[in-house]
């Protein structure tokens, strides 16, 4: 090795950073300001239809294998916190496809692994290298798909270049051990300048990438995911709730998701005041399990919907709620806390809370207090 290479190697191997530099850097990291802006990527793009239609039909075969072999399991364990005891990964070996367009790149998604936890179907999809490494090609998909003939919400995350981890909400479907999934993919060819686009950090002059996108190919993938549900359904335990009635229409607890749908019904002189209390109007609830774990809907990683007040046929003032959350909470500084509802819990308590808001409408941490009425319990059983 020459002196030059030796010198470069010495520098590359040197891992030391002076303590003063380290201290200043770590202090900066510990005192980062809060920011809550989350960028979402839109896949609604203008496309042209392809002309050639081809179809191929293959059998769908699935087998179960050990979770520790699985890239999907690695994702599930890191992002959702599932254990290998909870996960039976299904290997998806064959997929049925219908193709429209140029058909140059083969199957756009190789579906390799799947898992049914009873509320969501997860699967891993791998893009062929010829597509993944071609920066002029993009795969676009809708946030809807069809499962057992019904429309379902589809979410995805990209675990690494060319690898998608998808989840489909099946909580509104009838429980079964096999789910037939149909997903439509579009392969788009772009002419925009990736380098300019990727490195643009000025929000005032974003790169307009939509003008040069055209449809290369469309594919409809059909495959089956098998596996018995390990979600548990629940029902309301105590119906004698002071000051209110609650109807629970859905309660599902799985390793990935806690899903609740319920309606508050209030009558009497103070009904209007109670149904409009800030905590109830905003849908702030503590959710506590029998092991003492507690998450809340203010800081959880969740989707939450709260309806407007309406009057039912019996004259009750009502609000509908739907909570769909990972059973993990964020703390008051938006930092992840590994507080998680036990998926083995026999019941949960759902308790509305209230608190104080600052001048900019942000909840003031530490001011939360239970309403003192309106809490209810849900007991869970294992799915048969």
């Amino acid at each position, binding site marked *: 090795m020459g002196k030059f290479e030796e010198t470069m190697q010495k520098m590359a191997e040197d891992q030391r950073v002076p303590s003063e530099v380290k201290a200043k*850097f*770590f202090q*900066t990291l510990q005192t980062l300001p809060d920011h809550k802006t989350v960028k979402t990527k839109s896949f609604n793009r203008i496309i042209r239809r392809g002309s050639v239609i081809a179809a191929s039909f293959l059998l769908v075969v699935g087998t179960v294998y050990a979770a520790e072999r699985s890239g999907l399991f690695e994702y599930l364990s890191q992002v959702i916190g599932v254990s290998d005891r909870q996960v039976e990964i299904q290997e998806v070996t064959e997929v049925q496809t219908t193709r429209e367009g140029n058909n140059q790149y083969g199957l756009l998604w190789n579906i390799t692994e799947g898992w049914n936890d009873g509320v969501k179907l997860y699967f891993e999809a791998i893009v062929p290298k010829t597509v993944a490494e071609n920066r002029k090609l993009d795969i676009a998909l809708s946030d809807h798909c069809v499962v057992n003939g019904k429309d379902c919400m589809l979410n995805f*995350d990209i675990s690494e270049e060319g690898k998608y981890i998808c989840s489909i909400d099946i909580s509104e479907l009838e429980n079964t051990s096999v789910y037939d999934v149909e997903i439509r993919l579009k392969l788009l060819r772009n002419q925009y300048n990736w380098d300019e686009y990727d490195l643009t950090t000025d929000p005032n002059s974003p790169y307009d990438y939509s003008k040069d996108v055209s449809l290369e190919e469309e594919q409809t993938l059909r495959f089956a995911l098998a596996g018995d549900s390990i979600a548990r359904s629940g029902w309301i335990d105590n119906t004698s709730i002071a000051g209110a009635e609650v109807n629970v229409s859905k309660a599902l607890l799985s390793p990935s998701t806690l899903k609740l749908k319920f309606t508050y019904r209030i009558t009497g002189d103070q009904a209007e005041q109670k149904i409009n209390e800030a905590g109830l109007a905003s849908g702030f609830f503590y959710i506590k399990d029998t092991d003492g774990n507690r998450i809340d809907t203010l800081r959880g990683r969740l989707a939450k919907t709260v309806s407007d007040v309406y009057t039912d046929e019996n004259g009750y003032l009502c609000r509908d709620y739907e909570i769909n959350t990972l059973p993990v909470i964020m703390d008051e500084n938006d930092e992840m806390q590994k507080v998680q509802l036990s998926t083995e819990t026999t019941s949960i308590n759902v308790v509305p809370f209230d608190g104080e808001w600052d001048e900019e409408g942000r909840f003031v941490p530490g001011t939360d207090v239970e309403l003192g009425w309106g809490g209810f319990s849900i007991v869970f059983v294992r799915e048969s």
Partner: protein
Amino acid sequence: MSLSDRLLVRRARNGDKQAFQQLMEQQIVSMYKVARVILKNDDDAADAMQETALTCWGKINELERDEYFRSWMTRILINHCNAIYRKRTMSISEESIPEKGDWDQEFDRMEWKMVLNSLDDKYRIVIILFYVEGFKTKEIADILQIGESAVRARLSRGREMLRRQLGRDTN
């Protein structure tokens, strides 16, 4: 970039501060080397690293692809280094800045630092990004916003200058 790093970037982009902290802690050695080579003293390097952490946190949700995090962060770091360097050269001479830390106390490390310091800035940055940080010429071109051919030319010329400086190499 490993799967776990990709997930850290993804979480950081979604506002997970702890993930961002973990991600940046992994970059500290790399950041220090780049900043130190450009600025030649620890105080300024620490300032540049601090500013870079804040800028990256503020703008990480504008990063479109997880795998570009490192080159994106390095570009921001170099921009901060250049700003500090310009400000400093207007107000203080380089020789008057005290050296700090244990970096300078070992001869072999002093040797490569002095050797690199003998190069003009434009060669020094390209050399460290290529040989020490392992970036490809295309990535360096993106980071520095210059052509790839210019990167290759600077690498070649910088390498020859260093070899001459080091004396014993013949090619």
